[in-house]
């Protein structure tokens, strides 16, 4: 592909605001995403506060500021808004921009040897559309009658004008729609860039697994986010123009719509969405485990196959979210079988991870720790999912805190640990400086321990029958004994929140005063580290390199003998002596002397 080198803009606006440079757009997504992560995290703390001290106890520190009319205490309607906004913000405005927006944009061109995305201007529109959607989120918070409160799933009738009047929910429907457009624009770019802009010699099977994850995620995004877009649009029409697509209580006999249809549309998108959020994480972890265990990724093709299989299967299992909606038993059985089938490629991937680190020369630096933490929490999350995919157990666990614990372990804990792994790993490439290792390790241990305790506590509470989303769970007599469990889970959640302050400090301190990074501080093999400066020049590569091997060439004894190091990058030719060395070293008699 003939890729032109655009002149670098010198004006601040064109360089940092309306930029078409994928590296700057990645940072825009990163900073916006981290800001919303703080907002979503604060909302989570308020939910935990409510479960620890239901009724009355004012939320400390921020309570008076956010809920002035009640003196800081959370009221039932405020509580409904808080958990709704927590879910939506974390999924669409925190994980998505950080994992996909920031790291997708940053890694794809650099790792495949492209000078930018295929459509740089579309990339810019993608960020600014995302910004528009963020404005809708803020508007939702400031609207009268409060922010959206229909739950993150936005099910009618709760989300119709009957269930949640006012502009809060309408703004969120529009926000979901516009962030969807942003995601689709990004997705088109990712797909085309990977297909068309790989460096010469880089076949699909020479791509780093991070790129495979990002690419498959982009495909799912482009195909399934528009379905959510439709649902959000129809909901907005119902709210704004009085149509009756989803208005409840209006059965077909009275010519009304059907709220169940929203659930179908929502989950046709919603199930692919959970894989949208985990596939990049899988890809990143596949690569990082290999990079830091100093071994080739175990069965590269198997990992690719597993991710492709999950991508395909994810499109046909959405019904398992709707087992309890009166679905025909035979249909439910079909969805159950397909759902449980997903665990086959997932386990294959998991075994590949374990085999990758098995007997490796593991370097326990911060990115590796986070990658290992992701493997752990994802394993726990995956195993607990089996009970939800099976109808007979799901009947009891449906809509309990068990579901909450399960999906937080997979798509929250696992995705965020992988995001942090990626952030610690690519931080030097982004900002030219290293993050502090000691603070990073503290951040890791705090995060992984408290994440396990918080979501483990939620699994236990759910297993004991505590329903999700309850304002005061303990008004049900049969779970009053879970008060202590809930309170301790909350304490762990607060500890998890405060652990993140080490990250915030480390992040900003390192941007300005961190140790200067060398070009390849992790001694890895991929193009982003080996063939461009740290931080990269505007057009990434002065000369687009020609790739000669896969991304995980570690611990090759021949390389070690000739180059005195345990890695060789994707472009570097073996020294001349290498071929001679093989001939001399492998004497025919020695080989044949079995």
């Amino acid at each position, binding site marked *: *592909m*003939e890729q032109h080198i655009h002149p670098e803009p010198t004006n601040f606006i064109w360089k940092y605001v309306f930029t078409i440079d994928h590296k700057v757009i990645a940072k825009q997504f990163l900073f916006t995403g981290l800001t919303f992560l703080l907002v979503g995290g604060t909302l989570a703390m308020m939910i935990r506060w409510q479960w620890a001290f239901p009724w009355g106890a004012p939320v400390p520190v921020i309570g008076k500021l956010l809920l002035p009319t009640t003196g800081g205490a959370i009221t039932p309607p405020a509580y409904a808004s808080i958990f709704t906004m927590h879910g939506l913000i974390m999924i669409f405005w925190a994980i998505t921009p950080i994992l996909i927006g920031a790291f997708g944009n940053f890694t794809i061109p650099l790792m495949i040897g492209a000078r930018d995305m*295929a*459509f740089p201007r*579309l990339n810019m529109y993608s960020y600014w559309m995302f910004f528009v959607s963020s404005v809708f989120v803020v508007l939702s918070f400031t609207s009268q009658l409060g922010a959206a409160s229909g739950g993150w799933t936005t099910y009618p009738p709760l989300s119709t004008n009957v269930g949640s009047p006012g502009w809060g929910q309408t703004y969120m429907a529009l926000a979901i729609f516009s962030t969807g457009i942003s995601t*689709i624009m990004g*997705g*088109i*770019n990712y*797909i*085309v860039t990977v*297909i*068309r802009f790989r460096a010469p*010699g880089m*076949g*699909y*099977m*020479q791509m780093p697994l991070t790129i495979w994850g990002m690419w498959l995620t982009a495909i799912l995004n*482009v*195909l*399934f*986010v*528009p*379905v959510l*877009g*439709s*649902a959000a*649009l*129809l909901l907005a*029409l*119902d709210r704004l*123009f*009085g*149509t*009756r*697509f989803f208005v409840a209580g*209006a059965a*077909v*006999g*009275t*010519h*009304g*719509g*059907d709220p169940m*249809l929203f659930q*179908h*549309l929502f989950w*046709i998108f919603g199930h692919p969405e959970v894989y949208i959020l985990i596939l990049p994480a899988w890809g990143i972890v596949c690569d990082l485990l290999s990079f830091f265990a100093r071994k080739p990724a175990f069965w590269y093709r198997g990992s690719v196959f597993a991710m492709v299989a999950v991508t395909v299967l994810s499109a046909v299992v959405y019904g398992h979210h709707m087992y309890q909606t009166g679905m025909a038993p035979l249909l439910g059985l079909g969805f159950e079988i397909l759902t449980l089938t997903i665990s086959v490629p997932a386990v294959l991937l998991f075994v590949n991870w374990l085999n990758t680190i098995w007997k490796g020369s593991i370097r326990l630096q911060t990115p590796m720790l986070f990658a290992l933490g992701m493997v752990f929490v994802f394993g726990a999350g995956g195993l607990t999912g089996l009970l939800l995919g099976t109808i007979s157990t799901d009947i009891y666990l449906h809509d309990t805190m068990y579901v909450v614990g399960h999906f937080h372990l997979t798509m929250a804990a696992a995705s965020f640990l992988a995001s942090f792994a990626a952030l610690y790993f690519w931080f030097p490439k982004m900002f030219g400086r290293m993050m502090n290792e000691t603070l990073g390790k503290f951040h890791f241990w705090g995060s992984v321990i408290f994440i396990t305790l918080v979501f483990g506590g939620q699994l236990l509470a759910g297993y004991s029958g505590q329903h999700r989303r309850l304002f005061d769970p303990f008004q049900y007599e049969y779970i009053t004994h879970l008060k202590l469990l809930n309170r301790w889970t909350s304490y762990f959640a607060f500890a998890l929140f405060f652990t993140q302050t080490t990250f915030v400090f480390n992040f900003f301190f390192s941007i300005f005063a961190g140790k200067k990074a060398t070009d390849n501080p992790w001694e890895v093999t991929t193009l982003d580290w080996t063939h461009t400066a740290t931080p990269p020049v505007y057009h990434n590569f002065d000369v687009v390199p020609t790739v000669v091997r896969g991304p995980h060439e570690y611990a090759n004894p021949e390389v070690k003998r000739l180059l005195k190091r345990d890695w060789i990058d994707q472009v570097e030719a073996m020294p001349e002596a290498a071929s001679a060395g093989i001939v001399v070293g492998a004497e025919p008699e020695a080989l044949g002397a079995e």
Partner: protein
Amino acid sequence: MGTIVELRPRAREDFTQSLGMMIGLASWTMMFGALFFMYFGMRANAPMWPPAGTPRLPVALPAVNTAVLAASSLALWRGVSQLAKGRRGALAPWVGVAMVLGIAFVTLQVMGWRTQLAAGLLPSSGAYGSVFYGLTALHAVHVAAGLLVLLVVLVRSLLGTYTEHNVIRVRVAAMFWHFVDAVWLLMFVSIYLF
């Protein structure tokens, strides 16, 4: 590593452009697919359609409208193929014709809505009204967006931006226009005829 197909740089560039548009249209297809899924789901559960007491929608006006939009597509296709053959002056008039037909479509569509409103079918009258106004309005928004794109194409073709060498830039715009027309055909068949 697969076979490497060597293309001329221009052809490669063209392919990248149309690949982007095709993936975008796949996304749009899913969006309209979801709308149709919702509509068919609604109908599958309805004991009768249109619901008792609601008159059927008239077919004559949308049939004419379908012909108008098809003619518009044809005009645009004609202009693009003329440009590809090197007749640069031929593009602008054909784009103009396509736009006039597109505007005629929107006008007739508004007339259709007004007739139905006058007859008492409202967006809030239930599933039937919701589907009729909601789906056709969402489609009309796409036609309007397409008209804006065509306006840009028209201005640029009058300025002489397009040649037979960069015909791909008109072609991707035309792909969107043809797509919107094809969606209308499906809407006409499923909402008005059946």
